[in-house]
């Protein structure tokens, strides 16, 4: 398939990826979706999870995102991620550490907003762990 879709992944700190790819699978807030060229335009939320980038019929890159937004047009997929990490660069101990501190934060949260915040962080940490485990299975 010659046709490609321009995939851009941006975090607040920098532009991480900007390249034409065959397909990307994004964990949308209403379920995962694959975006191929000439996808119907849409804007959606992104939940914490892994983005799969397909190149030449197979997964070429896997990136963990901690939630954000995605804009899909016929020729372009833009993901605005809160945080983005390559799955291949995740380290088991930092992930475990993060999960632990997130759990502690939920325990210690004393106000509603703090608890919401901590629960969100915990959600991200759990997704991160799942991404890591998935990698070891592969």
């Amino acid at each position, binding site marked *: 398939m010659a046709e490609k879709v321009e995939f851009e992944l941006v*975090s607040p*700190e*920098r*532009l991480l990826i900007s390249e034409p790819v065959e397909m990307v699978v994004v964990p949308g807030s209403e379920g995962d979706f694959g975006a191929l060229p000439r996808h119907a*335009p*849409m*804007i*959606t939320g992104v939940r914490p999870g892994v983005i799969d980038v397909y190149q030449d019929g197979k997964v070429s890159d896997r990136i963990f995102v901690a939630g954000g937004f995605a804009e899909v*047009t016929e020729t372009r997929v833009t993901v*605005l991620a809160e945080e983005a990490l390559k799955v291949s660069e995740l380290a088991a101990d930092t992930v475990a550490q993060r999960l632990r501190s997130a759990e502690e934060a939920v325990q210690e949260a004393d106000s509603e907003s703090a608890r919401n915040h901590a629960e969100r962080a915990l959600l991200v940490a759990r997704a991160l762990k799942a991404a890591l485990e998935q990698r070891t299975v592969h």
Partner: protein
Amino acid sequence: MASLKDLRLRINSVKSTRKITSAMKMVAASKLRRAQTSAESARPYAARMERMLGSLAASLAGQAGAPRLLAGTGSDDVHLIVVTTSDRGLCGGFNGSIVRSTRNLVNELLRQGKTVKLMLVGRKGRDQLKRDFGKLFIDSFDNIGRKGVTFAEANAIANRITGLFEEGQFDVCTIIYNRFKSAISQEVTRQQLVPFPVPAVGATEAEGGAKALYEYEPSEEGILAELLPRNLAIQVFRALLESNASEQGARMTAMDNATRNAGDMINGLTIRYNRTRQAQITKELIEIISGAEAL
């Protein structure tokens, strides 16, 4: 007239001052480079966020039930002003111009009978505004961007702003910061954060009629409700980054000037020192000769 010893001491002290200022200049220059790159690499996100928000806002514009962060509270009686300054001085007019602009804005709003609340980021601005507007302060942040501005810091400030807004503490929020133009020039910028200024509809339409055809998951309102606080954080983040880069630029320029002035001063003092020394030798010689002649 200063004695030779005084002059010598003076020259030495100016020399050591010059050493300090030139070292500070170097430090500022290297920090500037880093601050500038991070300010520039944050731009794509802000730009794309704006594009997304623009198309969303355009499709929701004028509809009832738009989120309050976009539509505002319907009045503009209480203003929250976020003032971003640096924690450290010795950076020329950097903080002074921010403080001046804030003063003007506050006085103007007070004259119009509005209520003003101030949120201070950075120690310098807080210290300088405390005397006149100390009772308007509601919050202040220190040590922001000490090791480079992180998004978490911006997020904390943005959360505070949205929190206050939800409690109904203010109607309009404006941020004042120095926008980085180049190492030698910064521009004091006032940007309205809440309610979010909707980009002109004409501009989004010009990009193509496809704007209205987006599908939204979960829903336009749902996305907008998440996107707006996020955008606020991004705008704060951008302001902090710009301010940080400006600070280093301003400091570099200020320290460059200081180093040059110190050099001029050393030259002047050295000339005076030499003249005084010569005058003294001449005087001593005359004394000796006239003493010898008297014999």
